């Protein structure tokens, strides 16, 4: 299937975790256009299932609000597992308190939806240097 680190590609691997099908499609197209290898899941449990199966990604774009298991819950769980992937929160909530709580779960940073090239270009430049 070519998920994450078991893909033969040398591209930066990204996981989009979002239950909104419009955002899934936009973010997948955006990140693919920027040269990333992109996979999509619809809730936090699917993110955990992937990592527990041994798959990992360079980058996760984690929606805050998802069914079954939300962004903050799964981020805390991933960090407790020792996952070092860069986890960027994405949210349409604009209250500082909500974003701060999400950041506190273990994010590297948090963006307002939808992502745009300008929002993530500096992040990708840093990643490409490291790769």
């Amino acid at each position, binding site marked *: 299937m070519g998920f994450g680190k078991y893909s033969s590609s040398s591209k930066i691997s990204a996981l989009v975790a979002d239950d909104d*099908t*419009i955002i899934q*499609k936009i973010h997948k*197209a955006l990140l693919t256009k920027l040269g990333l290898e992109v996979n999509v899941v619809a809730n936090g449990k699917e993110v955990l299932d992937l990592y527990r199966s041994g798959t990992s990604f360079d980058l996760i774009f984690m929606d805050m609000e998802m069914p079954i298991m939300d962004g903050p819950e799964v981020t805390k769980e991933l960090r407790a597992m020792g996952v070092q992937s860069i986890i960027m929160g994405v949210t*349409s909530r604009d209250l500082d308190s909500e974003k701060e709580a999400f950041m506190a779960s273990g994010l590297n940073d948090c963006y307002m939806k*939808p992502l*745009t090239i300008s929002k993530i270009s500096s992040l990708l430049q840093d990643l490409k240097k490291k790769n």
Partner: protein
Amino acid sequence: MERNPLQRQVAYMRRSLFDQGYLDEQFVQLEDLQDDANPNFVEEIVTLFYTDSARLIHNIEQALESRPLDFIRLDDYMHQFKGSSSSIGAKKVKNECTQFREHCSARSAEGCVRTFQQVKQEHTILRRKLETYFQLARQAGLAN
């Protein structure tokens, strides 16, 4: 770039959608993602929006019929609607969603009912304009 009359008409119509405040910069972001690999990307996203928003409109209509009004549920639905509208750059729809949410915060049933009509109106107006725009764009593409 030399344009044929149809292409000029498409460009004019596109410009009008922005100048009249129906669309914002996010629509341009979607256009930037359209390429040979995804030649109908913008129209696909807009179609997805209208499918998704039909469901949300139905949910909100049902919620507005219950008494007493559950303003938290209404706000949650409208938050989703606003998010989807933002994703396609539907500026006027998004603004009406914001108004609705303010009425939810104020627990104003009359305000919610009234602004929901405006949300639906802007939603319908934009759909018709975008349908015409995409149809014209296809014709211009074929003519090219």
